[in-house]
Every structure is written in structure tokens, then in C-alpha cells.
């Protein structure tokens, strides 16, 4: 049985762990609010961008000559997957969920005997994937140095993707990230960005007759690369809000667990202290009786 001293030490250590998790929770809560605000502020841009592209692509009559970013290369041999994860740990199932989702997709691709290429954004994703998919990872990116998520970072990733696409290094590009639903729920997402999924295009009413200057094709070929960056930026914003939310709930439950543990240990400590006192008393009484 643990001695009184041991128990005392354990209680102290659990209490200090609790202090840390509590502080982390507070920090995550503050960061979450900011991240959420940023994600909301960024929404109009990507929504508008999407709308314009939908309008444009439904206006294109000649599907054959549509830009490759929209129509694809006509093949589906090489898949590029961009896995967006966090740079820091201690955020519950946040990274694991993305990786799980991505691995299902990776397996599907290797079952179909297609080539897989992976770009990881965020160091945690790389750490988890490197064991199994080391040969497939073509690039790893980390934004540890930038304090906030900014568009320039997303643009860098976007440009790299487009460069690779133009060099015909892949045919299909999919991004994986966590969509922020609320603090407790984050939904891992897979989203195909090249070629752009056009199945969501609804047949718009005919009053959307736009005038284009210059013509549709040129606008579209100018707009699509921008859209890639925008989509990645959106994913990064959602991801950061999700990360903080996930960390907050993880740290909240850690704090609660530590509290429960302190309670249990305190009871055990009091019991053994009482037992020691009782034992001493019995010894004294029985000593007195024997006289």
C-alpha cells in the first residue's frame, strides 16, 4: 500500500497537471474565438468566388476546350492529396480524425492501383503519415513561423499545386481538413479541388446572362488558380478553428479527469491517515490494558 507521503506527492502532481490543462483550455478558448471570427470573415470571399465560378462554368458551351483545372486532364492516374493538420499536439482527436479519413482514401487509391502523392501541411500530419506512406510524401509544409493564418501562406501552397499540375505531375487533387461545426464537433472533410467538382452546379435560371470582359475562357483560366488558393485558405481557416475547438474540449475533459483523480486520491489519503491513527490508538489501549 502506498504510504502517506507517496499519496501526498501524487495529489500534488495531479493538481499541478490540472493547473496546466486548465490554463491550456483558457488559451484555446481565447484563440478559438479569434479563429472562429476569422473563419466567418473569410467566408464571403470564398462563397462569392464559388458563385462566380459556377456562373462562369455553366456559361461555357464548349466543354472540350474548357481549362484543364476545371475539366481535368482526362485521366485519373495520379492522385495528389493535401493533408492539412496542426503543428501542435494535445488537441484530442483532431489530427487523428483527419489522418483516418485520409488513410481510407489512400487505401482506395492503392487498391485501384493508382499512384499516390501526398503533401502534408502541418508537422503533426507528417509525423503520423511518415511511417506508412514515407515514399508517397512529396512535400511537407509547415507554417510554424506565421502566427496567424494569412492568405499569403495559402497562396504559396496554391501556386505550388498549380505549378505541379501544369507540369502534369498529377491528375486529381484532393484536400483533407476538419470542418468546424461547433466546439465539440469537427467533421473531417475530403474535397476535390482539381478538377473542380461541377456536380454541385444547379441549373440556374436563364436570367443570369452575364456580359464577360474579356471572354469566359480567359476569365475562367485566370480565376481557377485563384480559386485553388482560396479553397486552401478556407480549409486552413476552418482547420485552425477546429484545432482550437478540439483542443479546448480535450483540455476541458483533461481538467475534469484530473479533478476526479484528486478527489479519489484525497479520500484514499484521508482513509490511510485515519487507519494509521486508529492503529496507534489500538496499540496504546492494548498496551494500557495489559498492565
Amino acid at each position, binding site marked *: 500500500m502506498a504510504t502517506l507521503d507517496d499519496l501526498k506527492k501524487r495529489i500534488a502532481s495531479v493538481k499541478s497537471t490540472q493547473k496546466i490543462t486548465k490554463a491550456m483550455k483558457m488559451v484555446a478558448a481565447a484563440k478559438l474565438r479569434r479563429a472562429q471570427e*476569422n473563419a466567418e*470573415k*473569410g467566408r*464571403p*470571399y*470564398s462563397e*462569392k*468566388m464559388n*458563385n*462566380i465560378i459556377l*456562373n*462562369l462554368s455553366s456559361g461555357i458551351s464548349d466543354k472540350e476546350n474548357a481549362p484543364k483545372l476545371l475539366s481535368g486532364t482526362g485521366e485519373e492516374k495520379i492522385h495528389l492529396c493535401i493533408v492539412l493538420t496542426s503543428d501542435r499536439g494535445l488537441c484530442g482527436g483532431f489530427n487523428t480524425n483527419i489522418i483516418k479519413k485520409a488513410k481510407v482514401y489512400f487505401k482506395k487509391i492503392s487498391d485501384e492501383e493508382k499512384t499516390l502523392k501526398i503533401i502534408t501541411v502541418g508537422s503533426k500530419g507528417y509525423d503520423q503519415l511518415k511511417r506508412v506512406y514515407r515514399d508517397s510524401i512529396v512535400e511537407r509544409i509547415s507554417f510554424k513561423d506565421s502566427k496567424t493564418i*494569412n*492568405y499569403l501562406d*495559402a*497562396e504559396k501552397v496554391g501556386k505550388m499545386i498549380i505549378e505541379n499540375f501544369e507540369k502534369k505531375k498529377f491528375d486529381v487533387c484532393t484536400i483533407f481538413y476538419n470542418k468546424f461545426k461547433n466546439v465539440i464537433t469537427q467533421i473531417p472533410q475530403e474535397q476535390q479541388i482539381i478538377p473542380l467538382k461541377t456536380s454541385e452546379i444547379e441549373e440556374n435560371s436563364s436570367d*443570369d*446572362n*452575364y*456580359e*464577360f*470582359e*474579356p471572354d469566359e475562357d480567359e*476569365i475562367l483560366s*485566370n*480565376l481557377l488558380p*485563384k480559386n485553388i488558393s*482560396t479553397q486552401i*485558405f478556407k480549409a486552413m481557416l476552418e482547420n485552425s478553428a477546429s484545432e482550437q475547438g478540439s483542443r479546448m474540449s480535450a483540455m476541458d475533459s483533461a481538467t475534469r479527469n484530473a479533478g476526479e483523480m484528486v478527489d479519489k486520491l484525497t479520500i484514499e489519503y484521508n482513509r490511510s491517515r485515519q487507519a494509521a491513527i486508529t492503529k496507534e490508538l489500538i496499540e496504546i489501549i492494548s498496551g494500557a490494558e495489559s498492565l
Partner: protein
Amino acid sequence: MSEEFKVEIVNPEKSFLSKEDVTEVVVPAFEGEMGILKDHISIISFLKSGVIKIFSKSGEENYYVEDGIVEFKNNNLSVLTSSIFNIKDIDKDKISELLKQAEENSKSNEITDQDKYLLDQKIDVLKTLN
């Protein structure tokens, strides 16, 4: 009948500007400056570097943009841009910095004619601002 329409400028990080009482907007469209009044036909165009002028009852506002897309539909003008500055707030240092960068870019040989054309435009605009 009112002659006002709504303009909204968004950049990737936030909604930059939203105004309801705009009477005229001049945007630096790809094929030249374009003035937009109420009940303009629906149009999509992209922007080159230049100045967006927004006229409203409260006066005139000028913004410098580097690139972007503009969409006008149902008396709603949306401008999507990744780089926009209010001319009032932009200082000389920033302008010269942008100018220097643009000049360097235009000197390199790896750019296409179209990029070169856009960069030259940008240099001109920056020079007038400076």
C-alpha cells in the same frame, strides 16, 4: 427613383467594405477603366492594377487594387481582391516598395507578354500615386 446601388469589397481575410448608398463606381477593368451606374447589365470582369473610385452621397473614396474580380448583378457590385489599400492610408514608403518590386518583376525575362502588360500598367499607376 433612387440612383443608388450596393457595393461590397471583400478580400480573403474579411469583408473589406460594404456600402449601400453608392451612385457610381469606376473600376480598372482588364480592358480599360469601366464606370458602373445603377441598372448596369450583369457583368463579370477581372481587374488590373489601378484605382477603384467609389462615389456616394458622402463623397468620393479611392482604393488601390492590384488584382481581382468584379461582378455586377441585380444592382449588387462585388469586388473580390487579395490586395487592396485605401489611398488615404497608404504611405509613400509602401508605394515605393511596391513600385520597386513591380519594376524588378517586369525586368525578368520569364514573364509572359500579358504579365508584362499588367506589370507595366501597375508601374504606371504606382508612379501617378507616388
